[in-house]
């Protein structure tokens, strides 16, 4: 095997079961090294977000294997071990997904740092992550409901980077933002990933954004027969 941080080998996904089963992601293969960024593009319904979910370890693939830092991450029968969750973090299209609504941003990040790294004092990491994500520190003590879309997305990036993952998955991170905010959030995303040497998997519709990545992987729509 190569020295890739993330290896996706012949991964496919199926929605539903029995007679209603339908392929949601045609077998897909890609590799990302540390510091690289790969854009995943493809038509709607091709399974881009499904691929993101599988790499994040939120759902198992129907076939194939995902490897992170050279060891198995998730296979058809297994999801990643809880203690290794630190390795892959994500930023969703909906930034509220990263935060428990009744907690402040700081508390959500603290909890994640404590559980994933075992460190009890998360203050330093949070400060650094906020800096990386261009998030002003006073926003850390608000809840997501009190943030604008761009602020919340930066907070989500900060949360993901606070645990220093090997792989960062960003699923349409800017699709809910206005163009100016989208540009600055993107800048923050690329800069922080480059600075920390994180492998970045970027799911996007936007050709401009894809062009800024090291490589582009195009996934094809799965066959429409069952």
């Amino acid at each position, binding site marked *: 095997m190569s020295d890739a941080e993330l290896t996706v080998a012949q991964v496919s996904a199926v929605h539903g079961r029995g007679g209603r089963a339908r392929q949601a992601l045609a077998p897909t293969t890609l590799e990302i090294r540390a510091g690289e960024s790969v854009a995943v593009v493809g038509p709607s319904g091709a399974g881009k977000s499904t691929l993101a979910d599988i790499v994040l370890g939120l759902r198992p693939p129907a076939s194939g294997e995902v490897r992170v830092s050279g060891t198995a991450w998730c296979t058809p029968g297994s999801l990643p071990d809880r203690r290794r969750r630190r390795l892959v973090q994500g930023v*969703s299209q909906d930034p509220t997904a990263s*935060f*428990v*609504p009744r907690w402040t941003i700081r508390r959500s990040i603290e*909890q*994640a740092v404590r559980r994933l790294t075992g460190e009890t004092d998360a203050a330093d990491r949070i400060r650094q992550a906020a800096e990386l994500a261009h998030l002003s520190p006073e926003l850390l003590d608000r809840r997501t409901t009190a943030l604008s879309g761009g602020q919340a997305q930066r907070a989500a990036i900060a949360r993901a980077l606070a645990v220093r993952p090997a792989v960062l998955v960003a699923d349409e991170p800017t699709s809910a933002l206005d163009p100016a905010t989208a540009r600055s959030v993107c800048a923050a995303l690329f800069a922080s990933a480059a600075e920390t040497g994180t492998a970045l998997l970027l799911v996007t519709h936007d050709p401009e954004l894809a062009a800024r990545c090291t490589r582009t992987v195009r996934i094809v729509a799965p066959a429409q027969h069952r």
Partner: protein
Amino acid sequence: MRNSPVLGHLSRVLSGVALMVVAGALPWLSRTDPAAAVLRARYAELEPSPEALAAVRDELGLEGGPLDSSLRWWSGAVRGDFGTSWVSGGEVAPGVWRALGVSATLTLFAVCVALVVAAALVAPACRRVLRDRPQRGSGPVGVALTALPEFLLASALLVVVAVQLRWLPPYGWTGPDTAILPALSLGIPAGGLLGRLLADAVAGVAEERWVHVWRLSGAPRRVILAGVLRRAGAAVVDQLGFVLIGLLGGAVAVEQVFAIPGLGRHLLGSANAQDIPSLQAGVLVVAVAAALVGALTSLARRLLRGGPLPPGSLPPPPEPRGDGRLARWTAGTALALLLLILVTGLPRDPYTIAHPRLAAPSPALPFGADASGRDLLARVAHGTIGTLTPAFLIVLGAIVVGLLLAMLGEVSRGPAEIANATPPILAGVIVAALLGPSVAGAALAVLWVTWPPLTTHAASLVEEARAMPHVRWLPLAGVSSTEIWWRHVLPSTIPRLLRHGMLRLPGVALALAALGFLGLGAQPPLPEWGLLISEGIDYVERAPWTTAAPASALILTSVFAVALAGLRRRLPPNAPRRPSLTVREDAEVSIPASAV
């Protein structure tokens, strides 16, 4: 895996088999030794010596285990042989068929009444569709009709029409004139419920976009109305099924009041005599009828809606409508009156015989005295506690059961469907036959019919909570699935489930009272509403207040329940409106006594 449809079917089949085994083995589930029960029933004077018991066992074929006797009973039952009665020693089957004939006839009459009532309630909504007027709720008439528990309506009709006006015979089953009053007391609440649900469904459907589109494209009004009725009917057809089953097997109270030899009375008699074979036969007949009705309604739903329902939920009845102001006032007034009874009555003594028998109401004795000379106000007030406390515990129990089963997903589908189709009184009869009549037994029976809707709701709330983006992403923060359940899914589920449970509280209390009325629940001298009414009904001509006092408390609760169910949840102004989520809890409060 938890939501696989295969699991749902498997659960149905397994619960069906389990139900059959249990039905066949009922004698062995009885708290008493079946042989001892038979011996006591037939030869009261005989000592239950081991030899005598062995002889009885031998004679009844009770040797072997529960599974064995269950198999033997079923092999007889499929050939139409239900065994011999423990009490009379005669064949059970002919009596059951006779009772079934009577019940079927009575049900037919009652359905006619119900259809007329329902049609009358739906007519205004249909007229509004034809004239393209904005829809309103089903209104207070529907509420009033459904708020009447059947046994109360039956007693009232008996007293007024048969005893005082002497227009119709008070009891028996001798001709068409004896069927009128029972059919009215069964049909009016059933029709009220159906009409109200259908009117609400029509009102809801009439506001759907396609109706507007059809209007714009110039479709004739009749066609639009037919389309609306078809869609509304699909939403109510399941409820129609439950109402039919309720009429056939659950008409115990009405048959008891009018002394009609139907299935309900057959069941009640067998339960009181602990004549299990006779009870088994009755239950089997009702279960078969219920299965038939269930198959028919699902067929009807398929015809109306096209295709089977996606797995995952029992279809909820339509959303109640109405502006809520009237409902709030009604609920508030009823609650205030109930509290007044409680506050004034609780300090008084419900047990001491300190007054003249059947003393009339007076300032010192606001509700009068009962046949033993006890203070009725005190008894009604203490009865409120005696009825509402078990009701509260039942609701809490049902919530716990609902949450546990919601975690299991489709596994609970089979039991839920069976329990959902069981009329509370039928459950009460079975439990009473097995455990003897008691408050706990009645509570168990009512719990059995209370958990399914709460489970359905819990399951949908859990699904919803798990689908929330931040809950879906919690594993990324290293949160274990157990912790996700305890700290994130349950806390967002429990408050709404509690609210739904509290909406059901009065309905549960009414079901308990109905069981008490039949002598299947609380036993004298405990003050309990149903029991109080049945104690008072013998003196209703000389002292109407003996029934009026507990009955009015019951009616207040019932009105409170129905008005409460009609209230819409008021969302904070900026909260997102998610119709599919707000419907369930209010809508599923089906009407208390109607299934009784």
